[in-house]
């Protein structure tokens, strides 16, 4: 009996040792990458607005402050992505980039008055379920 317990304990210790080698993805990293995708999508929205406001002229777009706001948002987003990667697995963090599709859908309702079709809602739902699956498992380490 005693032997059994110690064997069990040994296996637990071994498991814990193995887990130390796995870089888990921290909650902070996930929050960082979510903010990153939000900023990047806002950046895309500013590009789009800059282009429409300058009537699609490439020359005039360079004088539009919205273009520079977009670039700034992109840069901050990239810094946040690096900070997130520091604390998490690439294969987990990178999947969150797909959130951009969802933010852009929401912005197009709010700022561009577009309607979202059932098909698009289904796509959004699938992406969210996929992300939950990926993070749930990676946080469990297995």
């Amino acid at each position, binding site marked *: 009996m005693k032997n059994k317990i110690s064997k069990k304990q040994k296996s637990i210790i071994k498991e814990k040792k193995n887990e130390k080698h*796995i*870089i888990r993805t921290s909650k902070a990293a996930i929050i960082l990458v979510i903010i990153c995708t939000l900023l990047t999508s806002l950046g895309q929205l500013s590009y789009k607005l800059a282009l429409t406001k300058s009537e699609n002229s490439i020359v005039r777009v360079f004088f539009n402050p919205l273009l520079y706001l977009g670039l700034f948002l992109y840069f901050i987003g*990239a*810094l946040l*992505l*690096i*900070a997130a*990667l*520091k604390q998490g*697995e*690439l*294969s*987990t963090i*990178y*999947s969150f*980039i*797909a959130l951009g*599709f969802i933010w852009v*859908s929401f912005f197009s309702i709010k700022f561009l008055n577009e309607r*979202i*079709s059932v*098909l*698009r809602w*289904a*796509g*959004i*739902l*699938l*992406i969210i*379920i*996929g*992300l*939950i*699956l*990926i993070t*749930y*498992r*990676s946080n469990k380490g*297995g």
Partner: protein
Amino acid sequence: MVKIIIKILLPTILVMVATIMGAFGSLYLKFGSKKRTDIKNIFKNHQIIIGFVLYGGSTVPFIAALKFGELSFVYPLTALSYVWVTLLSKKYLKERITKNKVLGIIMIMIGIFLISLSSK
């Protein structure tokens, strides 16, 4: 025949190049993020610079692909980047690719496909 090549084959190749560039870009950003760097000297970190160039540069073949192909065809192809990133993180970072991760990535790819179908 020529039309098919210009409308389908060319954008496909361009998106492939873009997604592979983007995947390597994020891999280099991950490499670079391991080093201790603060914001002041982030541009002295070579791996971060390579990552930025590849990641940002991937938009060039992507925009070119959009010029030749239709948005609803080009967009779902960008979901390939998730496949590349998963393969690269297994190969170079020895990350565990679990069944749930594979399942999640497949769901994300189908989701992106549905979203691009709806933006026709």
